[in-house]
């Protein structure tokens, strides 16, 4: 790892207060731990993928980094500076450097604004004195860059397809030339052929502009394609992290192994032949997570000691870390490689 990572999350916690309806105002609210002690590092120019099932806290993690959700513990260090300690002006400047791409392409665009206005909004917000002609020129250039005809600048979002809307969202995220782009399931609302186009566009832009990227998805095969490194989240915690190839071919954590064995292989013979690991049961409630290892209720390797305390993170070298004392790679996964 580099000496000073570009973005560093240290034991990050995000907690929501949940009030039971009809409770007295002075009753202490129950806590929902959406993100519960996540530590991750991101190097400049790197793409970090985050996978996990619904409700594992991926989106909350993204929102904490971007600053729309308050953190309740831990630190976010952006280029070595703690976000919580930034002053208003610094914070504003930081917002320029971190942009986000959203899940639902149409919902992320204001239906009453033209495409040009939408893409220009970050620019106009941070540099209100930019001459209008220059704003328009930059918007047009960027539209072309993301694969939209610049003469559509005066159109409205409802006149575009989902894939085009996502391109508009990408253009808006890139107009300030940010250093970090967080993609919150940017392709899960698109159909497969459009997914490929958007992902290729993102990869190309990342390479050309030297962006750092956090790519959140629940589809492991998509994440594997775009990421340099992958973190696997479960119930607000990181279960395993490592280089994309390493993690997908030799997963160590039982949860990762189960996830990978659930990725379909596009060959019926191989698909039928391979052994399957199925996770049974539901995701436990984050209001009342299991003690010790949060995955133990659904883990096939769970033992009595798992309930006692939170498992230590084992470093396997080359940045491959796993939060399970009974980790081991298994031969069954060779088939997917």
């Amino acid at each position, binding site marked *: 790892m580099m000496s000073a990572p570009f973005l560093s999350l240290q034991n990050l916690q995000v907690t929501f207060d949940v009030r039971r309806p009809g409770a007295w105002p002075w009753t202490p609210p129950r806590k929902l731990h959406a993100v519960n002690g996540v530590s991750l590092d991101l190097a400049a120019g790197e793409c970090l993928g985050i996978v996990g099932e619904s409700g594992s806290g991926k989106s909350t993690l993204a929102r904490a980094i971007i600053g729309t959700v308050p953190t309740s513990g831990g630190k976010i260090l952006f280029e070595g500076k703690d976000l919580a300690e930034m002053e208003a002006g610094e914070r504003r400047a930081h917002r320029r450097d971190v942009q*986000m791409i959203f899940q639902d392409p149409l919902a*992320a665009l*204001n239906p009453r604004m033209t495409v040009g206005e939408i893409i220009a909004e970050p620019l106009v917000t941070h540099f209100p004195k930019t001459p209008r002609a220059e704003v328009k020129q930059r918007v047009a250039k960027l539209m072309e860059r993301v694969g939209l005809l610049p*003469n559509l*600048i005066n*159109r*409205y979002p409802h006149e575009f397809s989902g894939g085009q809307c996502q391109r508009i969202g990408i253009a808006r995220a890139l107009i300030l030339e940010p250093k970090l782009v967080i993609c919150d399931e940017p392709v899960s609302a698109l159909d497969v052929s459009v997914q490929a186009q958007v992902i*290729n566009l993102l990869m190309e832009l990342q390479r050309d502009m030297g962006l750092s990227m956090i790519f959140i998805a629940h589809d492991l095969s998509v994440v594997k394609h775009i990421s340099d490194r992958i973190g696997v989240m479960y119930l607000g915690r990181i279960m395993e992290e490592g280089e994309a190839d390493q993690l997908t071919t030799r997963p160590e954590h039982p949860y990762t192994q189960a996830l990978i064995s659930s990725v379909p292989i596009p060959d019926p013979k191989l698909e039928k032949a391979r052994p399957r690991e199925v996770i049974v049961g539901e995701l436990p409630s984050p209001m009342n997570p299991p003690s010790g290892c949060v995955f133990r209720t659904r883990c096939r390797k769970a033992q009595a000691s798992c309930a006692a305390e939170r498992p230590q993170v084992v470093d396997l070298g080359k940045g491959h870390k796993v939060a399970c004392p009974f980790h081991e790679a298994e031969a069954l996964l060779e088939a997917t490689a």
Partner: protein
Amino acid sequence: MYPDKTKMESLVEATNIAEVKGRSLWSDARTRFMRNKAAVAGLVILTAILLFAVFGSLFQAWTHEAIDWKLMGRVSQIGGPSIENGHYFGADELGRDLYARVVQGTGISIMVGVVGSLVAVVVGTLYGATAGFFGGRLDNIMMRTVDILMSIPFMFVLILMLVIWGRSITMLFVGIGLISWLDMARIVRGQTLSIKNKEFVEAAIAVGVSPFTIILRHIVPNLLGIVVVYATLLIPGLIMAESFISFLGLGVQEPMTSLGALIQGGSKQMLYGAWWQITFPLFFFLATLFAFTFVGDGLRDALDPKDR
């Protein structure tokens, strides 16, 4: 691999397409509105009534205060509508020209409705959007205040105000303005709650747009549809309220008049056969209400096509 930049460029250059004008949701709504015959008819009638109220006084032979002494005491016999003596709509029981008075009354009535509705739009929208957007304790305080104000019987208070501070048109405007925004604030807050959770608002927050700009740029334009509809439908209600107050004799004072006051005067004279004194004001009153209601319904259908 897509996008092929050189291809795109050549495509743009070759066709040299002018910028395409987008169809905004507003222009879509206009098309839908224009297709609605009842609404367009309402709009035409409304325009005609507005023109009548603004320019009608140019054609009057008498002012609304002047008394035609020749008709004095014999209004119910010879005071009917007539072109020769210049009383197009006839004269009232004092021999004043009804045409001039209807022009003036229509103007006052519409003004009460429009001003009250404007107050509702401006105050109610900003108040409701602020409460809804910030939420939490501020929302609680602001909306409970509205609840308390709403629980006060408005007509009663308005009558008391007019009795205590004198019967003046200003007091009527103040009174109507004070209550008209309450419902609007509630409606707008409800809409804001649903809009603020949309991703484009989150995107704006993430970009660092200031809260007030978010309210004005992202939230208000998206709830303007409902606001416009409600404001249009509010106007007839306010005209009715004003007419009711004037009917009780508390609203607009002589020599000024409003449709409500004219109808009240006319209803007393019906017994003596002076039918025109109630017919003309009533016609303009009903036509205005119907026109506003039809336009309001048309706007609602046009701006919210999902509801049909």
